[in-house]
């Protein structure tokens, strides 16, 4: 495959999502509006009204219903998409587990927004981080370009017969969702060819013969029925296996997409920036990585061996990649845009420390909770975090392991 002709559009992150969904030949979109996801569904409903897509567009009365409609359509073999944020995602909570348990490869854009109360419409990662155990793959995008690319890749990953797991593609509220960016977009037919048609595997049905894994009156099957202590555990074990297979598929799809687009995001799981010889490093997800890269550039000019590890996938956690890329790093600061109240640090901190426990270098790992409710994360604050790391490197002592960056 060769890199294809692309157009540059000045669009925001939400519009990039809507366009990617339009080009991905989606059968069913069911959604309920919530700021800052609204533009995605508004723009998509215009495509529907203008006859630019053949998608069945369902306006539901709640997010709980929106995801249920997507789950049902997906169970019939349809390619499905929805989008939500904050309270909307929280209302979906129950059905998130039903969707992954029914192995329905629904793709959802999450525009990361703070949870109430007090009510706040701006960016933090509390909404999706709390759903990390729901059995969904989570991809966090750094910019709108990556958001566009990730949505297209997400259909291929979710629907892969070895995976069959739903995916959340997460983008930062307003920073990405409402900010114009130059986004390179592929031709409609290029995307359609890349995503292809959805296929379903064969499963053993109740008549003792193999049937397609979809709700179909001519080959009826039952999905997700009562499953007690005798088999529930086995079905959960199967979901974990799908998560174990997912990293390889995510990387393959990412690699194949790079061949038509010319764009890569690390290895598809992690994006390592100047980590080869770094003594100190930060870890984060989302748009803050962009700001952090400029800080790393500045420190590198001053001769400081600084680096950044951006996690592109948080579920599945790319544990071996984390350990390998951080093997020479001596002090690590994890930046969390959400808090686990009473849990001594944020969710990314917990998992990075957990990953590095068996690392032979056993680096110091500290945590900074930042940016809650859309609080800005300017380069100066990130620079201070690297200065703290330099101090830890010099003194070999950690004064405070969990801190709040940017709070008064």
């Amino acid at each position, binding site marked *: 495959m060769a890199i294809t002709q692309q157009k540059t559009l000045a669009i925001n992150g939400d519009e990039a999502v809507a366009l990617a969904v339009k080009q991905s030949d989606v059968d069913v979109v069911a959604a309920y509006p919530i700021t800052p996801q609204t533009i995605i569904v508004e723009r998509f409903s215009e495509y529907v009204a203008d006859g630019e897509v053949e998608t069945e567009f369902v306006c539901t009365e709640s997010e709980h219903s929106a995801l249920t409609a997507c789950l049902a359509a997906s169970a019939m073999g349809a390619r499905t998409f929805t989008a939500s944020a904050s309270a909307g995602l929280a209302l979906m909570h129950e059905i998130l587990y039903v969707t992954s348990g029914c192995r329905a490869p629904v793709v959802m854009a999450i525009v990361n927004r703070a949870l109430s109360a007090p009510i706040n419409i701006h960016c933090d990662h509390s909404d999706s981080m709390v759903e990390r155990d729901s059995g969904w793959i989570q991809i966090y995008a750094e910019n709108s370009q990556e958001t566009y690319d990730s949505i297209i890749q997400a259909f291929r990953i979710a629907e892969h017969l070895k995976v069959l797991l739903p995916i959340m593609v997460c983008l930062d509220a307003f920073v990405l969702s409402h900010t114009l960016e130059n986004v390179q977009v592929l031709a409609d037919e290029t995307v359609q060819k890349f995503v292809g048609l959805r296929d379903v595997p064969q499963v*053993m*049905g109740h008549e003792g013969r193999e049937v397609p894994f979809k709700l179909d009156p001519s080959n009826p099957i039952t999905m997700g*029925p009562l499953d007690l202590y005798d088999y529930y555990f086995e079905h959960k074990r199967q979901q974990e296996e799908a998560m174990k297979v997912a990293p390889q598929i995510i990387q393959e799809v990412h690699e194949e997409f790079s061949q038509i687009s010319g764009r890569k995001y690390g290895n598809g799981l992690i994006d390592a920036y100047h980590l080869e010889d770094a003594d100190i490093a930060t870890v984060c997800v989302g748009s803050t990585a962009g700001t952090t890269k400029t800080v790393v550039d500045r420190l590198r000019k001053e001769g400081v061996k600084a680096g950044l590890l951006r996690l592109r996938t948080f579920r599945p956690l790319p544990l071996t990649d984390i350990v390998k890329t951080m093997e020479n790093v001596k002090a690590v600061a994890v930046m969390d845009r959400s808090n686990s109240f009473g849990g001594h640090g944020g969710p990314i901190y917990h998992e990075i420390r957990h990953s590095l426990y068996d690392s032979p270098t056993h680096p110091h790992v500290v945590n900074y909770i930042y940016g809650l409710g859309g609080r800005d994360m300017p380069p100066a604050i990130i620079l201070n975090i690297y200065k703290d790391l330099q101090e830890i490197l010099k003194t070999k002592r950690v004064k405070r392991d969990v801190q709040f960056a940017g709070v008064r």
Partner: protein
Amino acid sequence: MSRELKGWKDIPIAGVCWKPATEYLTGDWKTFKPIHDPEKCTKCLLCSLICPDSAIKWNQANEELMFDYDFCKGCGICANECPADAIKMVREGEG
């Protein structure tokens, strides 16, 4: 639950049933079971119609009602609705 249990690699995903419902004996968890009195029974077959588990069948050959305790959950709807008062609910092991 005496049937042989399979491992996670050997069962379909998403809880898809690989056996028909008739092979799952859903009647093994009842507390009360219906006892039918043929003397009082008028053979109106209302119980057979309203049984949520289709566990009461009409045997055309001998013109008798048959209660299938492998599938009867013991809900007691039949006993409650029987116009001839011909069905009694008795605690399992006592009837």
